[in-house]
C-alpha cells in the first residue's frame, strides 16, 4: 500500500471519527458548560461590591490563584499551537514553550508584588498612581483593551476553526454560531460571576488541561517504554526531516530575515507576559503581596510542568501521525493534539473516540476560560480606568462602577463576536504573538519606570504607552502577517513593507526609549511625594487593601 493511500484513509477515518462521535464530544462540552455556569451563578450570588467583582474578594489562596493564573495563561495557543508547531517544525516549536515560561521571572522579580501592593483593580491603578490621572488612565485603558481584543480575536477565531473541525461543521453559519456561542458564554461568565466566577472557571480549566496533558504524555511515553531518545528518533524519522527535526532552524532558519524575526519573537515572548493585563489583574485576587509572589511560584511550577509535557505531545504527534495527516487536518497543525489522542486510543476503537472527545473538550474549556479572563480584564479597565476615573472623574459610586463593568462586558463580548465571525476564515494565529509584543512595548516600560524610576513623568508614561502601542500595531499592519504573504490575513493584497512578522525588536526598545525622551522633554516636575508613597507602598504593602 502506498503511503499516499494510507494517508488519505487516515484522514477520512479521523474526520468520520469526529462526526460519528459528535454526540460524545458535544456531551462532554455540555458537561463543562453546565458545570461552569453553575459555578458562575454561585459566584455571582457572592459578588456584592467592587472588590468582589474586580478582584474576587481578594481571598483566594496562593495555590488557588497560581492555578487560576496558569488557567488564564495556557491558552489554545499554548496547548494546540505549541503541540502543532512541534509536530510540524520539531525543535523550533519547542522554543515557544521556553520563552513563555522564562517570561514569568520578569513578573516574579519585578512586577507581581509591587503591583499587588500599590494597585487595587487594574493595571491602570499602578500606571496612574503618581501621574495625572485622566490622561494616563485613558492610555492604560486603551492599551489594555487593544491587547485584550487582539488576544480575544485570536482565541475566538481559533475556537470557531477548532470546534467546527472537531464537530465536523463546515458551513459558514455553523462557524458563526460557534463563535457566537463562545461569545455569549464568556459574557455570562464575566458579567454574572465577575472575578470570583472567572477565577473558579480558570481553576477547573487548569486542572482539566493538566490532567488531559498528563494522560496523553503518559500514553505517549508508554508507547516508547519511557525512552525519550526513542521517541525523538521516531519523530525525526517519521517527520521525513531526519536529525534536522530535532535541531533549531526548520521554521526560522530559512534566511537572515527569519532569524531576526525569531529574535524579535523571543524578545516579545519574554517581556510580554509581565505586561498582559489579564494576567496582572490576577495578582489582586489574593490577600497580600506575599501571596501574589507565591501564586507566581505555583504558576511557574504548573506552567513549567505543562510546557515540559508539550515535548511529549508535539514529538509524540510527529512520531505517531504522518505529517500529511496533521497538515490535512489543519494547516498550522492546530489539531495535532486531538489527533494524537485519537491515534493513541486507536483510530477505529471506542477508546480512541473517547480520548479524542476528552482532549477536544479540554481544548474547548481552555479557549472558554481564556476568553473569559480577557473579557474581564478589558471590561474592568473600561469601567474602572475610563468610566469611573476619566468620564466620571472619580465620582462614580461603587454600584455604578460595577454596573458599567457588566455593561462593558456585554459590549466587548458583542464586538468580539462580530470581529470573530468576520475573521473566521482569516489566519489570526499571529495575533497572540502581537498581543505579547504590544504588551511588552506599551505596558511593560511604563510599569517598570513607574515603579522604579523616580524622575518618570506623565508625559513619559503617555509617550511610552502610545508610542509602543502605535509602533507595534503599525508595524504589524504593514507586515507579512496582514498582507502580501500566502499565510497572511489578507493574502490577496500586498501593502507590506516591514519584513518581519514580529514587531518586538523595534517596538519594544522604542517604547522604552519614548518613556525616557518623554520624561526628559516634559516641563512638569515629577511628584516626589507621590513617588515616595508609591515606592514605600510597593515594597512594604503599607496601605494596601
Amino acid at each position, binding site marked *: 500500500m502506498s503511503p499516499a493511500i494510507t494517508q488519505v484513509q487516515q484522514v477520512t477515518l479521523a474526520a468520520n471519527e469526529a462526526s460519528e462521535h459528535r454526540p460524545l464530544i458535544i456531551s462532554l462540552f455540555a458537561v463543562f458548560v453546565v458545570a461552569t455556569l453553575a459555578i458562575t451563578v454561585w459566584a455571582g450570588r457572592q459578588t456584592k*461590591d467592587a472588590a468582589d467583582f474586580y478582584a474576587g474578594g481578594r481571598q483566594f489562596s496562593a495555590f488557588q490563584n497560581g492555578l487560576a493564573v496558569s488557567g488564564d495563561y495556557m491558552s489554545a495557543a499554548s496547548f494546540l499551537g505549541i503541540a502543532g508547531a512541534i509536530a510540524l517544525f520539531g*525543535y523550533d516549536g*519547542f*522554543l515557544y514553550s*521556553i*520563552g513563555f*515560561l*522564562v517570561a*514569568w*521571572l*520578569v513578573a*516574579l*522579580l*519585578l512586577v507581581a508584588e509591587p503591583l499587588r501592593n500599590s494597585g*487595587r483593580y487594574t493595571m491602570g*491603578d499602578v500606571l*496612574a*498612581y503618581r501621574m495625572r*490621572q485622566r490622561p494616563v488612565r485613558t492610555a492604560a485603558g486603551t492599551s489594555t483593551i487593544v491587547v485584550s481584543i487582539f488576544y480575544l480575536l485570536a482565541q475566538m477565531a481559533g475556537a470557531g476553526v477548532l470546534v467546527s473541525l472537531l464537530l465536523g461543521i463546515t458551513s459558514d453559519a455553523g462557524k458563526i454560531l460557534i463563535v457566537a456561542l463562545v461569545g455569549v458564554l464568556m459574557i455570562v461568565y464575566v458579567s454574572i460571576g465577575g472575578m470570583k466566577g472567572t477565577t473558579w472557571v480558570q481553576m477547573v480549566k487548569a486542572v482539566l488541561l493538566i490532567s488531559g496533558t498528563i494522560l496523553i504524555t503518559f500514553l505517549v511515553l508508554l508507547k516508547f517504554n519511557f525512552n*525519550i*531518545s*526513542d521517541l*525523538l*528518533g521516531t519523530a525525526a524519522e517519521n517527520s521525513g526531516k531526519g*536529525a534536522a527535526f*530535532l*535541531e*533549531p*532552524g526548520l521554521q526560522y*532558519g530559512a534566511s537572515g530575515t527569519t*532569524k531576526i524575526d*525569531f*529574535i524579535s519573537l*523571543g*524578545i516579545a515572548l*519574554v517581556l510580554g507576559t509581565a505586561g498582559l493585563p489579564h494576567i496582572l489583574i490576577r495578582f489582586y485576587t489574593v490577600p497580600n*503581596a*506575599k501571596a501574589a*509572589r*507565591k501564586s*507566581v511560584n505555583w504558576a*511557574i*511550577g504548573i506552567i*513549567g510542568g505543562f510546557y515540559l509535557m508539550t515535548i511529549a505531545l508535539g514529538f509524540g504527534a510527529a512520531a505517531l501521525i504522518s505529517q500529511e495527516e496533521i497538515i490535512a487536518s489543519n494547516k498550522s497543525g492546530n489539531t495535532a493534539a486531538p489527533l494524537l489522542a485519537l491515534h493513541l486510543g486507536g483510530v477505529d476503537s471506542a477508546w480512541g473516540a473517547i480520548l479524542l472527545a476528552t482532549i477536544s473538550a479540554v481544548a474547548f474549556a481552555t479557549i472558554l476560560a481564556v476568553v473569559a479572563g480577557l473579557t474581564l480584564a478589558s471590561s474592568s479597565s473600561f469601567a474602572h480606568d475610563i468610566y469611573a476615573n476619566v468620564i466620571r472623574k*472619580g465620582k462614580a459610586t461603587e454600584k455604578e462602577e460595577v454596573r458599567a463593568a457588566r455593561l462593558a462586558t456585554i459590549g466587548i463580548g458583542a464586538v468580539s463576536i462580530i470581529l470573530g465571525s468576520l475573521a473566521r476564515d482569516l489566519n489570526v494565529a499571529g495575533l497572540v504573538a502581537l498581543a505579547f509584543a504590544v504588551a511588552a512595548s506599551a505596558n511593560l516600560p511604563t510599569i517598570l519606570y513607574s515603579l*522604579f524610576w523616580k524622575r518618570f513623568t506623565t508625559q513619559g508614561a503617555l509617550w511610552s504607552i502610545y508610542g509602543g502601542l502605535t509602533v507595534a500595531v503599525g508595524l504589524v499592519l504593514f507586515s507579512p502577517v496582514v498582507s502580501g504573504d500566502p499565510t497572511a490575513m489578507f493574502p490577496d493584497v500586498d501593502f507590506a513593507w516591514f519584513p518581519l512578522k514580529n514587531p518586538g525588536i523595534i517596538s519594544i526598545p522604542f517604547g522604552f526609549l519614548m518613556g525616557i525622551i518623554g520624561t526628559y522633554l516634559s516641563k512638569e516636575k515629577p511628584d*516626589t*511625594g*507621590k513617588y*515616595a*508613597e508609591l*515606592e*514605600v*507602598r510597593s*515594597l*512594604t*504593602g*503599607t*496601605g494596601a*487593601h
Partner: protein
Amino acid sequence: MATDAPPPSKADPHLPTTEEFVEVQESAEFGELRRSHRSFAFPLTIGFIAWYLLYVLLSNYAGDFMGTKLFGNINVALILGLAQFLTTFLIAWWYERHSTAKLDPKAEAIKSRMEGGA
C-alpha cells in the same frame, strides 16, 4: 489617590500622610530594604534575560553546535532548552528564599509601624 478614594464602607488601615511616606522613604531602614530588593532582582533579571538571549542566538547562529548529539537522539539544543527550564525553577526558588529571609521581615516591620501610627 485623589480621584480614587477608597470606599468608606471598608475598614481601612490607617493611611499615613505623604510627609510620613517621604520620611520613611528617606530612612536608612527603607533604604536597606530597597537595596536588598534591587541588588537581588535587577542583576538577576539582566542575567536570566542575557542567558535566554544567548540561547536564542545559539539556536539561530550555532546550528551545528546545537545539533551535536550527546546521547542517543538527545542533542545540545534539547539539553540547553531543558536547562532554561531548570534555571527558571531555580531562580524562582532562590528569590522565594531571599524574600522570606531578607525582604518580608523588613517590609512587615515598616508596614506595621506606619499603619499602627496615629
